[in-house]
């Protein structure tokens, strides 16, 4: 059985006449919560729980690798403390170069100013420039080119000038 919009509307008609202001319905396939507001109108929160029925194609890889760089993975070194991380403000795809095949914006050892462009994070078709924000030297690049990076993930670390 599949839950359709018509089903929900029929359930609603039954409820409309009744005394209840909330209905919670859960089966193996879906979870539905209907609530009546103060003005008598209804809202729904629906969740389809049935798992996708995956057809494995001959060509597709067995396990999709959706590994995203986790924010805290790279900060194990004791000496990392005085280093300043460059983080991504958004979840997205990290690019080290302006286009495929082009030289990277920065490499380990590159000298950067606060306004040096060090990478791009693409989120929902928008390109967001990532700036160093700290003057100094790039000592570690933590995220790979074209990797998915989580919100606030560390992309690289900079040794600040005079440190």
């Amino acid at each position: 059985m599949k839950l359709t919009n018509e089903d929900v509307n029929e359930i609603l008609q039954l409820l409309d006449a009744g005394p209840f202001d909330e209905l919670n319905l859960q089966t193996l396939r879906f979870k539905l919560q209907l609530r009546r507001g103060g003005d008598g109108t209804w809202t729904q929160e629906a969740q389809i729980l049935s798992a996708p029925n995956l057809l494995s194609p001959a060509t597709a890889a067995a396990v999709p690798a959706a590994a995203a760089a986790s924010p805290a993975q790279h900060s194990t070194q004791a000496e990392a403390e005085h280093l300043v991380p460059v983080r991504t403000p958004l979840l997205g795809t990290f690019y080290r170069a302006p286009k495929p095949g082009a030289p990277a914006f920065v490499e380990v050892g590159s000298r950067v100013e606060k306004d040096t462009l060090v990478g791009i994070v693409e989120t929902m078709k928008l390109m967001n420039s990532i700036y160093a924000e700290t003057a100094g030297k790039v000592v570690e690049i933590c995220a790979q080119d074209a990797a998915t990076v989580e919100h606030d993930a560390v992309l690289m670390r900079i040794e600040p000038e005079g440190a």
Partner: protein
Amino acid sequence: MTIRRILIANRGEIAVRIVRTCQRLGIETVLAASEADLDSLAARLADRTICIGPAKSSASYLDVDAVVGAACAAKADAIHPGYGFLSENQRLAQACAGAGIVFIGPTAAQLDAVGDKLKARSHALAAGLPVVPGGEVDSIDEARTVAEKTGWPVLIKAVSGGGGRGMKLVHEPDKLAATIELAMAEAHASFGDPRVYLERYVASGRHVEVQVLGDGENVIHLGTRDCSIQRRYQKLVEEAPAPNLRDGLRTAMHEAAVTFAKHLEYRGLGTVELLVDCERDTFYFLEMNARIQVEHPVTEAICGLDLVAEQIAVAEGKPLRFTQDDVHLAGHAIECRINAEDWTQDFRPSPGTVSHAVFPLGEGVRIDTHIQTGARVPPFYDSLLAKLIVQGADRTHALDRLRHALAQCEITGVSTNLPMHIELMAQEEFARGGVNTAYFPWFLENRATALRDPCVAKGR
């Protein structure tokens, strides 16, 4: 032939919407999904899901071979391409024909005819439609001649551009030569095609489009839609029919759209985009979209048809199931695109996990969405989360319902533009109906200025 199994080569809300119609019609669905969408709502609803590649669309949703390969592996009779991605791709239409699979869309030749702006424009001229005065220019001298005829200011457009990319406005003759050169160089760099054309700039314009449906012989229209609320050429609110249009103009627009589609012997669902020149009280052909559009539900609401079902029927080779006289347009419908964007932070995108998704229910309210409580909104694709469509006996009624329905929506975990819609729907100008495309940018700018004023910000 009868289509029994459809491969859906798309994602998001449109994939869910196609699954729903197929379920109603008893057609099996196979979703072609990228690795990022394997547990999406569409994947949970489809009969089967097949992985066509990694998250990056160029290696999955835009890969013709992967899509056709998946359709063959799943033994699908037909491919529904949705909108965006490969929906207007001639290579996909041809590859389908080669593999004996029905492409749910127009013919490859029709996709070609409307595929570039200049070609579409020449077809429009041949069909006798009004086009914005102007034409292709190869040299600066030619550009001067064309500009003198159209009048100033002029708009330079890249032939292969789209979605607002590759357009430049020139206010005075002195700037023409330099801007043409720049436009050609940029067009060459961006689209691999240096061709540009020149058009009169319409200062006060409305974006009104006409929905058409053809079976290759007969064509009918399903009325107008107004999509003048746009930011950077992305539509945010659409309504049907277009409000406050002079009757004679509306009828002429319907006729022009049908004439154009008939000229192409169009088979499928399509949209003829027109530009209404408010100052001159006339309209021009802009382009044709040879696919289902995001905003199709507002048309469904006023004509009572399921446009995906009609697309499938004509793709099966069936003649249109009704004539123009059978089509009755009633009431008014408005759609708000709910995007994962923070409008207070310059529309910054906001992917992530939806902690709660609560939507309104009731008469005249429809939600088309791919999100549910617990859903992950991946960062790889566009930011459309849901479409809220309301219908009323007339525009005022629809607006009342919309304001109430917007207030009932609750999406947490990601930022959305719901507050923007709520504020827009409270504006008198919008409520009056028929604003031009300059209105929405003005509304945003005005609001930003007001918020910068400390007195307004403090609510004094």
